[in-house]
């Protein structure tokens, strides 16, 4: 872990407000944003405590009693589908002496019993049993009703993606998603039922890099020709060229920290289905194509199969990675866990098996793509130990960005427009007041 250059940045306070303009300009960021423990602390207190954070997908807790353990920033939580049908996000901590209550990754249970002293909580979070209660007196009776598992004040979902906010007040989820809602819709359009399923398991990959390095890279249209050259050289050419001048692929800052690489214009120009899916002929997936045409009509189904899924980062921790979904969990300034699931289309097993095999090929710790992204991220973090230059450059395409109704677009897919959008949002959040 490196320390930041105090000469330039000054001291980063861990409470109160902080003038972020000392470390983030509109087209460059200071190296300390990736290495400073104080900045990491501020991120956890602001981005992950005040805003909406992706926690789980409804398909993973489909039945009453289903639960999962996850994190919001550094807070361990239980995502629990209560017997009343409500999905809650509860702090994973016994209200008695703070033992982590739920230790399995997932399961089905109507209640959680603390293994330490046997306190028992319903899966709606309420405290239902305290063993040997005669040992408690009036003081306990006064507070007993308030000793449920602490419920995350705001939980909402869109398209099955469950988001939570640890802050009681703030913008609605729909306002938060803004321009990124269309990216979720684009994935759902690929399912004849309008629903997707993410319950086939998450690959858990340890990245030795700051969490922002991991997510920024997901919408970087510049690196593929270099980082992933070995795939294109040895196995198959890229689905469409990564040379910006040869394609109509764009990058887009959707606002609110969300951004994407959008291949749809290029794919529509080719007017060919499944370019994004190994160029498989539609005859190989007749049941799927038929169901999709039944759902959308032949014209829209064709367009959906031409443009394929989205390649979109949803601020701060969710990446719609075409037929995969990735989310990240920051661990420390230089450590991040990336979780990746395959996008499963209910009822389309032929498609789904192929999708899982494609996920394993590209993603996760052994994936042909992501293993190398992980390596590059680790080397980025290692490079930051060098104190100079102090700033990272994000100016590519700055003069060619154009604003339209969809956001800030750059027709050069290698432009750093998504990263500039990411840090504009970052700067608006990380400097805000942190209570002492």
């Amino acid at each position, binding site marked *: 872990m490196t320390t930041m250059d105090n000469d330039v940045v000054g001291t980063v306070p861990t409470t109160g407000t902080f003038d972020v303009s000392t470390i983030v300009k509109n087209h460059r960021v200071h190296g300390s944003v990736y290495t400073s423990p104080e900045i990491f602390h501020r991120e956890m207190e602001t981005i992950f405590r005040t805003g909406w954070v992706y926690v789980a997908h409804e398909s993973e807790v489909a039945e009453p*009693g289903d*639960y999962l353990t996850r994190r919001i920033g550094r807070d361990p939580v239980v995502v629990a589908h209560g017997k009343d049908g409500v999905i809650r996000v509860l702090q994973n901590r016994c209200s008695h002496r703070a033992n982590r*209550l*739920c*230790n*399995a*990754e997932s*399961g*089905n*249970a*109507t*209640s*959680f*019993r603390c*293994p330490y002293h046997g306190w*028992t909580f*319903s899966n709606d979070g309420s405290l*239902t*049993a305290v063993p040997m209660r005669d040992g408690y007196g009036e003081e306990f009776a006064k507070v007993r009703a308030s000793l449920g598992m602490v419920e995350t004040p705001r939980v909402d979902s869109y398209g099955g993606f469950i988001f939570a906010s640890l802050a009681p007040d703030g913008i609605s989820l729909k306002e938060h998603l803004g321009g990124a809602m269309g990216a979720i819709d684009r994935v759902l359009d690929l399912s004849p039922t309008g629903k997707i399923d993410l319950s*086939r*398991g*998450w*690959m*858990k*990959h*340890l990245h030795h890099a700051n969490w922002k390095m991991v997510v920024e890279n997901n919408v970087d249209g510049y690196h593929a020709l270099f*980082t992933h*050259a*070995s*795939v294109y*050289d*040895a*196995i198959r050419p890229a689905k469409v060229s990564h040379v910006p001048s040869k394609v109509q692929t764009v990058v887009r800052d959707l606002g609110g920290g969300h951004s994407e690489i959008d291949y749809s214009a290029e794919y529509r120009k080719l007017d060919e289905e499944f370019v994004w899916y190994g160029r498989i002929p539609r005859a190989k997936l007749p049941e799927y194509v038929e169901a999709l045409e039944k759902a959308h009509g032949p014209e829209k189904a064709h367009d959906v199969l031409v443009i394929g899924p989205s390649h979109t980062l949803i601020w701060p921790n969710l990446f719609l990675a075409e037929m995969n979904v990735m989310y990240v969990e920051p661990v420390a300034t230089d450590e991040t*866990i990336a979780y990746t*699931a*395959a996008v499963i289309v209910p009822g389309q*097993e032929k498609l789904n*098996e192929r999708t*899982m*095999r494609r*996920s*394993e*090929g590209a993603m*996760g*710790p*052994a994936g*042909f793509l992501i*293993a*190398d992204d*992980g*390596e*590059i991220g680790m080397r980025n973090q290692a490079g930051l130990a060098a104190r100079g230059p102090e700033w990272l450059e994000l100016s590519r395409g700055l003069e060619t960005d154009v604003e339209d109704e969809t956001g800030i677009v750059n027709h050069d897919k290698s432009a750093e427009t998504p990263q500039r959008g990411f840090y504009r949002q970052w700067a608006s959040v990380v400097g805000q007041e942190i209570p002492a």
Partner: protein
Amino acid sequence: MTMIAAQDQPAVPLNLGAAPGPLPAPDADIVSFLTYEARLADEARYSEWEQLWDDDALYWVPMRPDDDPAKKLSYIYDNRNRIKSRVAQLNTGNRHSQTPPSVMRRLISNMEVTETDEAAGTVTVASNFALFEYRYTQRVWAGRVIHQVRRTPDGLRLVRKTVHLISAGGPVDTLAFLI
């Protein structure tokens, strides 16, 4: 309050389908073949390693030992064609996560024959392994490895290799070398 939340599941159960009693050791030629496979993987001799595989190959690293790969995502699920691609990528010398390649030595031991199919000419051997990897820092990987080997007129061929990592519960470090 009938059901109680399940506690942590062990990442690798103690029994992976082998019979409860002592099992025979493999024949000497099988032991040599598995030791050779380990040495080729350790020494990043990718193309020679690839040559060990038969056409109906499966190289599998599941996330949980009892997963059905048709229903659950794995870390690696390579058929023969995917193995070829994996090796081709490593052979570019530009697979950054293996450039430079990991320096490795693995021990493979406790070999037990769990199944012999005379008609198919296959022998299944379950072993424990410990792998020491050095790349910037030293890491240890360990688990149960199950090889299915076929006797052919051209010698022994590898049909199936399943690696149950004790750390499969994750998070898993980058696994771009041949495990």
